[in-house]
């Protein structure tokens, strides 16, 4: 998906101002797709939530979780997927959600930066931890599954 043609279409987005200086150092914005920029803005918004944002005593979104979310979103953007829903999680983490036809993918970033994922196809679900050191490849594999037609073949190693 990261063809030269796609890349060249994204060049004008170099003019897009950084929406969160703490996050812009992690992602090369001139490589960012529209979907990724939308998601980065969303992370920036959620980072501004105060303590007790959920009304049940949650701490604010943790910096480590936000950074890891950017890593996940950047990897997903390489597959050309549309912007996900990004939801805060009580405890200071984030959840990233995509739906495509009868498939769903949820990737949760816990406050300590660890990653969990859940995939759903029809009534079948599979959940598990995602190794952070291989998150990029793992996420791209899951996004390809989400937007493709092949059956899920178990954890991507």
């Amino acid at each position, binding site marked *: 998906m990261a063809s030269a043609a796609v890349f060249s279409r994204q060049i004008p987005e170099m003019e897009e101002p950084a929406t969160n200086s703490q996050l812009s150092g992690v992602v090369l914005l001139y490589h960012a797709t529209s979907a990724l920029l939308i998601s980065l803005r969303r992370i920036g918004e959620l980072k501004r939530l105060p303590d007790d944002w959920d*009304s049940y005593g*949650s701490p604010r979104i943790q910096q480590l979780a936000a950074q890891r979310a950017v890593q996940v979103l950047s990897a997903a953007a390489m597959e050309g997927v549309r912007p996900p*829903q990004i939801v805060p999680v009580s405890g200071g983490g984030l959840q990233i959600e995509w739906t495509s036809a009868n498939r769903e993918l949820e990737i949760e970033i816990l406050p300590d930066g660890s990653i969990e994922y859940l995939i759903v196809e029809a009534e079948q679900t599979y959940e598990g931890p995602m190794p952070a050191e291989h998150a990029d490849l793992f996420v791209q594999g899951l996004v390809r599954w989400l937007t493709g037609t092949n059956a899920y073949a178990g954890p991507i190693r």
Partner: protein
Amino acid sequence: MPVRLDDRISISDEEDLWRRVFPDRQCFKSMDNGRWRPSSAIFLERGKRGDETPRELSVHRSSLTTPEAVLAPYPHHSLAAIKASVPRELGYAVCPDPIKDDPELPDDPSHALICPPTGAGISKLKANARQMALKATWVAIRNPPF
């Protein structure tokens, strides 16, 4: 974390347990049948400030309060409900946890906890949260995305 015992005498399977939903359009998720449900994240609790392990989920017992009372301090939140039987079928305990004379929290006799089964892994809690979200109904919806 103390072991919490399921209290089926105080809280029947049929009692609605209410949980406030953060006022954000992305916390709503559309379903195939045209309805909207809360995100599974609403039923996740990954620990509270200064507390390392608890993943108990705060809820409010419908028999002991009103939607107006639960939402009064939060004029933009929505309110979702699940039957007590839903988490129990997933192995959770549901127990009363009334708040009284807490130095930080207002009194709330309706407060209860949905407590994960001992040893439940983080991944399993995630799948369970989705099951709860799928079976949730709306008590009050504010600023929905539809």
